[in-house]
């Protein structure tokens, strides 16, 4: 592993501990980058994120849009010749970015995840309609997908009432120890 940045070992070790992944095995063949369906929406290619951590460029990696745009489809990790779980690294970096209060490059994506977990906390299951309403309301953008939303309601693709878990205490327990 090439060592350059001063803080390199700190972040590298932390991400290793968080994700359980030894990404120093990455030799930048770019197989992940070539396979990624969402490359165009990212500021740094997936292998470059690994490179940034190897170089100790902590902030740049945590501030990137890449760590949020990655949906964890595993296209990259299933073809990585070194079997590096790249989506798990992205998970680790997202957690780190939240923990350190870094300015999130893709606040909409974080806001969406937060709304999803809010409905899971409330009902034990996701409730798409509520997630979308709250997400759009927070964004002050009620119009962009209105037509699609109405069409989905018409086609009964969005349940009006949430499906709920009966054992509320169990769900509370899961969310309390976070």
């Amino acid at each position, binding site marked *: 592993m090439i060592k350059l940045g001063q803080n390199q070992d700190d972040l590298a070790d932390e991400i290793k501990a968080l994700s359980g992944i030894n990404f120093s095995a990455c030799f930048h063949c770019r197989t992940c980058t070539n396979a990624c369906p969402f490359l165009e929406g990212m500021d740094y290619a997936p292998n470059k994120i690994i490179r940034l951590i190897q170089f100790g460029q902590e902030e740049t990696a945590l501030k990137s849009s890449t760590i949020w745009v990655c949906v964890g489809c*595993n296209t990259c990790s299933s073809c990585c010749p070194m079997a590096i779980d790249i989506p798990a690294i992205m998970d680790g970096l997202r957690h780190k970015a939240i923990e350190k209060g870094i300015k999130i490059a893709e606040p909409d994506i974080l*806001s*969406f995840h937060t709304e999803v977990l809010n409905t899971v906390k409330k009902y034990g299951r996701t409730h*798409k309609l509520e997630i979308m309403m709250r997400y759009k309301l927070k964004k002050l953008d009620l119009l962009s997908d209105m037509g699609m939303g109405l069409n989905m309601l018409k086609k009964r693709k969005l349940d009006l009432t949430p499906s709920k878990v009966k054992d509320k205490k169990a769900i509370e327990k899961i969310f309390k120890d*976070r």
Partner: protein
Amino acid sequence: MKKSSKTGEIYYKPPKLKYSFFPGCSLKASGHENTMSLMKFCDRVNIELKELEDWNCCGSSSAHSINHSIAENLPMRNISLVPKGVPLLIACPSCLLRMKSMYLKIKGDEALKQEYENRWGQPFDEELEIIHFFEIFSRIRLEDYIENPRGKLKNLKVAVYYGCMLSMPPDLKDEKSYYGIMEKTLSKLGAEIAPYGYGMRCCGTYLSAAKPQIAQTVVNEIVSRAMEAGAECLVTACSMCHLNLEIRCTIKNPIPTLHFSELLSMALDVKDQKKWFPRHIVDPVPMLKKRGLITS
């Protein structure tokens, strides 16, 4: 025993298979037509699905994205709910990934196993089998239930779409791969497969909500490539993929997208199409009528 109406020949009827069924939020709350046709299909092929009592969300992409502990505990509770001795069948690829990954993690970590047992008050079931819906094609033979399989979806030209479901992270690399199972099954039923090279391209999952532009680009590419290959419809095995391919496609007159379970049920002469197809955004009825696969 099932008697063939034409020949009077007695078919072998395999024993009933019983599974706990984890529907997950996508199938339970927005892909109702997927769930309905899946249940019908299983019923016709002598498979009993019993919904897992009081299951919760697997955590989906959001939990592991922003909270490690919640991402681990949501699947853990589900695992603790599965009755002993009954395999757990999951139809949503993403739920399967979350649940199986967590199950194997507990299995390989004594400390975590202890934590699981203390927290959920259940001994960890070392023998629990967690399978995807595709696995049933290794356990049943469609031919045992269909008299003339080749005539069922005759000449229907389909583009099969797996999305990310065949891509496994390194911790699941030893799991069985179901690559080609939809092609194999649908060809057996008389359908023609249109190869188009985009069947394993991810649909964008939640980017469809949070970054619609990105999802739209990938969805349009998938649908248009399938159309260029001459497909009359796309076939999905994931409710989430189905939704994205329908709602984020902006090309003119796109081909419809059918759930794999809908085609399977149709091949078994289930006549519930009127409950499923009105829930599709792109109406598959005209195309299926043209092919003579439905009459009304």
